[in-house]
C-alpha cells in the first residue's frame, strides 16, 4: 500500500442527544494512500458527506481519530482546521459554490490569496490550470456567465491551483448531465495521474463509481465494501 495520507481509526459520529441520536458513522476505519482515486458511495444517509466532513476538519468525530497528512484533524480548533484545509486540502462541492462577485480566474486564485501568494504569481499559476481544465479564454468570465459544467471546472481549478495533497469532492457531478459528468471525471482522473493529487469523492452514481480505482461503499454508517469498483475489477481482470 502507498504511504497513508488519510487515516480514520474507529471513527464514530453521532448527531443529536438522548433518545434522538442519529448514528451517522459507526466505528469506521479507513486508510487512503497518496495518489489514490477513491470513490465513497452509498445510499442517502449512509454517511458519505459526514466522512468527507470529518476528513476535512469541518466536523469532529464523536469517537475515534482522523489523521490527514500526519496531523490529527480531530484535535484542531476551527482556525487550525481552516489552515489545514487552506494548505493541504482542495474542495469541490456539488453546488460549485463559486463566489459570484469574482471572475473565474479570481475564484481559482482564492485559496492562493488566502496563502498570501502575490497577485502576479497567483495569476501566473492559475491561468495554466484554467487552460488545463478547459477554460482557456474564460478567465475573466463571472460564474453567472458560465454553464454548470464550466463552473464545476472552475471549482476544480480552485481546488487544485494551490497543489494540495488531497482533493475532496462531494458529489461533484450530481448537478451535471452525463456527458459533462463524464468529461469532468476524465479530467479529475487525468489530474490524479499527472499530478499525483489524491482524490476522494462521494457519489451514488454507478457510472461515477465505475471510474474510481478504489470504491468504499458505506451502509448505515459502516463500511460495507472496500476495493476496486466492479467495472474496474472487470477491466483489470480483462
Amino acid at each position: 500500500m502507498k504511504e497513508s495520507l488519510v487515516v480514520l481509526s474507529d471513527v464514530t459520529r453521532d448527531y443529536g442527544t438522548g433518545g434522538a441520536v442519529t448514528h451517522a458513522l459507526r466505528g469506521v476505519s479507513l486508510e487512503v494512500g497518496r495518489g489514490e482515486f477513491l470513490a465513497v458511495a452509498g445510499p442517502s444517509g449512509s454517511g458519505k458527506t459526514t466522512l468527507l466532513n470529518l476528513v476535512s476538519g469541518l466536523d469532529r468525530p464523536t469517537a475515534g481519530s482522523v489523521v490527514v497528512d500526519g496531523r490529527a484533524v480531530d484535535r484542531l480548533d476551527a482556525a487550525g482546521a481552516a489552515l489545514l484545509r487552506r494548505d493541504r486540502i482542495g474542495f469541490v462541492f456539488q453546488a460549485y459554490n463559486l463566489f459570484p462577485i469574482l471572475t473565474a480566474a479570481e475564484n481559482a486564485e482564492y485559496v492562493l490569496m488566502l496563502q498570501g501568494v502575490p497577485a502576479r504569481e497567483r495569476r501566473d499559476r492559475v491561468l495554466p490550470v484554467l487552460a488545463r481544465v478547459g477554460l482557456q479564454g474564460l478567465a475573466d468570465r463571472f460564474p453567472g456567465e458560465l454553464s454548470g459544467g464550466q463552473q464545476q471546472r472552475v471549482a476544480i481549478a480552485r481546488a487544485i491551483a494551490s497543489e494540495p495533497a488531497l482533493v475532496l469532492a462531494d458529489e461533484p457531478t450530481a448537478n451535471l448531465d452525463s456527458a459533462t459528468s463524464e468529461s469532468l471525471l476524465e479530467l479529475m482522473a487525468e489530474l490524479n495521474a499527472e499530478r499525483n493529487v489524491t482524490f476522494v469523492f462521494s457519489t451514488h452514481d454507478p457510472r461515477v463509481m465505475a471510474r474510481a480505482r478504489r470504491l468504499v461503499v458505506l451502509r448505515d454508517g459502516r463500511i460495507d465494501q472496500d476495493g476496486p469498483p466492479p467495472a474496474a475489477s472487470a477491466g483489470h481482470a480483462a
Partner: protein
Amino acid sequence: MLLSLSWRSLWRHRRRTLLTASSIGLSLALTVFFVALSDGFYGNLVQGVVRLEAGNLSVERPDYHDAPEAGLVVDGVPALRARLAAIPGVVGTKALVLADGVASGSSGGAAVRIVGVEPAVERAISPIARKLVAGAYLGAAGGRDVIVGAALARRLSLKVGARLVLTTGAASGDLAEQLFRVGGIFRTGSEELDGHLVQVPIDAARALLGLRPEQATRVGVLLADGHPEAAARAAVAAVAGAGLAVRTWQEVLPDLAAFIRVDTASNYGLDTMLLLLAGFTIFNTLLMSVLERRREFGVMMALGTTPRRVQAQVLVESALLAILACALGLLVGGGAAVLGGWLGIDVRSFASSGLDVGGFAIDPILRPHLSAALALGLTTTVLVAVVLMALVPIRSIPRIQPTEAMR
C-alpha cells in the same frame, strides 16, 4: 484582494448599499451643516458681543464686577494699553467708561446704560456703528453728540439733533448731569440695546462721571481669531498687575455664556441622536448582510478562510461603506455649510423683529462656519461608530458551522 473582495461584496446589493450610505451620509450632512451653522451663529454673536463690550478679555478693578460703581476705575490707561498691545495675539485694545443712568428728553425719561467709547476705535469694530438708521456715528472723543437706540428714541420722541440730558452717579458719589445732542440713531434688532443703550464719546463720559483723562472703567483686549484665551489671559494678568482683575467675556457676560453653553449642549445632544439613528441603520444593514451570507461564509471557511479573516472582510466592508457615506455626507453637508457661509442665509423672514440672544443682537444673515477640526471630528465619530456597530453582528461569524451553513 481582501479590499477588492470587500468592495465588490458591498455592491452586490447596489440599492441597499446606496440607501444605507445615503442614510448615514444624510445624517452626517445634517449634523455637519447644523453644527457649522451653530458655530457660525455663536461665533458671529461672540465676535459682535466682544467688539461691542470690552473685548475677549477685560481689565478692570477686582470689585467692579460685583459692585459696579463709577469710582472703581483703571488708572494709567494709555500706558497699560501700550503694554497690552505688545502681547502676542492681541490685535487691539479699547477703553470704556460705563455707567447706569437716566436719559431725559422732551417727552420723558428712561433708564439707560451709558457707554463712553472712543469713536475712532468703535467705528472700526463695533457693530453699533454699522447699524445706524439716522444721523451719523460719534465724531470727536470730546464731542457732545451721542447715539441712541431706535426704541429709546421712539419712547423719548428723539430725533437727530434733539437734546438729551444724561443723569448718573459721578465717581465722587454726587449726582451728575449733562446736556447732549442726539447725533445718530441705531437699530440692532435687540430690545436691550435699542431700548437702553446710549453711546457717548469717551471724554464726554469721563467729564460726566468726573474721571481723569487717563482713567476708564474697563480696558478691553481683542484677540486674534482662534488665539488661545487662557494663555492670553495669563499674559494680560501679568501686564495688568495685582491691583487689577482680568476677566473673560464669559465672566463679564455670564448669562450669555451660559445660554450659549446650554444651547450648544442641546444641539450636540440632537446631533448625537441623529448619528445614533445612522448607527442603527448600518447596524441593521450589517446584521442582515451577515445573516444572509452564512452560506458564503461557510464556503469561505470550508476553503480554508479562518473565521477571523471572514470577520475582517465584513469589517472592511463596513469601513468602506462608512467612508462612502462620510464622503457623501461631507460633500453635501460641508458643501451646504461652505456655500451658506459664502452666500449667507437670510432669516429675516423668520424673525421680522430681529434676532436677539441674551440682549445682544444677531446678524439676521447667518453664516455657517465649517472648520477642518469639526469636519474631521464628526467624520471620525461616524467612522468609529460604524466600525463599532459592525463588531456586534460579526461576533456571530466564528459560530457559523460551515457544514450547516452550506446545506
